[in-house]
């Protein structure tokens, strides 16, 4: 079943300044789709159109069959800039709980979800800390926990690990795979990092730039459960990574 359908999507900011041109792809239910492309290919714009944060100029986005106009229900976003996306005046627990208040969940259920999602990202017992008391990687885990607690059907991640160090990044990638398998939601993962896009994805879309449009689509043939060292030395990984790299190189 299709969770997310993007059809002939175009977006321009003003006359003659197209960011996206005639983009079409779909994401199946429970799938993790990576979108990879050079910077300036409109990845963030694409994600904002899907999230209903900015309106499309032409074409449409459907989430579970419903056309997106405004932010659809059951969708969560993890932004690249966790430092600005987490609210510094709320403690970690309050940050995670905040979106749940809008869902009108009873207090007990909210608490339970906060507990569970903080545990899922390995931040048990950090409720009372403020985000700025945590490291960058931990802050991004709080942002992921906040999205998980919301129990979205579709999770959008906008270069979420672009501003953490390499070590932390591997850990967060594995965390993403793990929660994807555990919670089973559909994930659209935007990145400019080729290794990351292949390592995480079930399927992958390569974008070209100016204006952003689909260059290639490929199914990633890797085991469901992955490991930074083992998976990345598999011949299949090495081959598909080269395919993606070649596509991006050809396009630029």
């Amino acid at each position, binding site marked *: 079943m299709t969770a997310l359908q993007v059809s002939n999507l175009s977006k321009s900011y003003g006359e003659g300044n197209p960011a996206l041109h005639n983009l079409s792809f779909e994401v199946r239910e429970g799938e993790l789709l990576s979108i990879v492309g050079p910077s300036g290919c409109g990845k963030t714009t694409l994600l904002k159109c899907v999230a209903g944060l900015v309106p499309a100029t032409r074409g449409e986005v459907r989430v579970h069959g419903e056309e997106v106009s405004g*932010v659809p229900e059951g969708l969560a*976003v993890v932004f690249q800039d966790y430092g600005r996306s987490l*609210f510094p*005046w709320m403690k970690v627990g309050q940050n995670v709980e905040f979106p749940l208040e809008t869902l009108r969940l009873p207090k007990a259920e909210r608490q339970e979800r906060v507990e569970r999602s903080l545990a899922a990202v390995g931040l048990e017992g950090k409720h009372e800390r*403020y985000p700025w008391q945590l490291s960058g990687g931990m802050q991004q885990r709080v942002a992921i926990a906040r999205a998980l607690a*919301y129990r979205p059907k579709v999770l959008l991640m906008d270069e979420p690990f672009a501003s953490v160090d390499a070590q932390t990044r591997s850990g967060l990638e594995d965390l993403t795979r793990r929660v994807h398998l555990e919670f089973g939601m559909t994930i659209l993962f935007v990145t400019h990092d080729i290794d990351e896009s292949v390592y995480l994805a079930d399927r992958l879309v390569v974008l070209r730039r100016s204006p952003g449009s689909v260059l290639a689509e490929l199914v990633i043939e890797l085991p469901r459960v992955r490991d930074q060292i083992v998976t990345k030395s598999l011949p299949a990984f090495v081959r598909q990574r080269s395919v993606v790299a070649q596509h991006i190189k050809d396009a630029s």
Partner: protein
Amino acid sequence: MNAPVTTTGVRAEPRRPGVRRRTSPRGALAAFLRGTAGAALLTLAFEVFARLELVDPRLLPPAGVILGEALRLLVDPAFLVEVWATLVAVLGGVALAAAIAVPLGVLIGSYRLAALGLTPIIDSLRSVPGIAIIPLLVLVMGQGVSMKVTIVAFVAVWPLLFNTVYGVRGVDPVAMETARAFRVPVHRTWWRVVLPSALPLVLTGLRLALATGLTVGIAAEIAVGTRDGVGYFILRASYAGFHADTVFAAVTLAGVLGYLMNGITVALTNRLVVWDGKGPS
């Protein structure tokens, strides 16, 4: 509109961690000692100058005499009643100003249309020097507390309003987008995202409003002969002849009052705004 008083809410600038650094206990002690030393030196200079009697000592009493009189006033119920009257008027006026300025500031800061529509009115109103409307207010409201509250509110509303507007405009767009992405309704976003984010600047506005409010409140008491307040007390002491020590002491204590209000607001800010300088917005 005029420039924001602090730059905490300006997002275009790179983060400067620890904009308001917390001083260590030792640093605080050192600062206190330095301040005390400065004040002591000034008092001593005043004392020496007055003792030289270049000016009639009945007009310029020495610092020691003034301090003694100030201490006497501090426990004099007749004076404390006047302090209370001024305090009620100033706090009432500033509270009224905040009740108007903060919601209005959120509105103007959030909606371009509100800003466009209200700016001409605000610019012309705020060009009126507050003290100039005192006679008019006396005519309409008499010389009682409601006149004082009104004039204090009139001058206190501007720093609160402009700082709220700048605070609201300084809210991080990523924070707003996050709230929108989770479908948080507008009113809840105002309470939980916009206001906390603007709070440091709103509190700066409050600090300025209290200072201006106290000045203008006392000025009103002196100018139009209200029947109570520190200003009234000073005026009466001046008319009574050769009570310069009482006048100086009352003025000093009015200064102390302003200092305390400022200090309390700063302490409140440090308590409420634990995140300032630690994260964006």
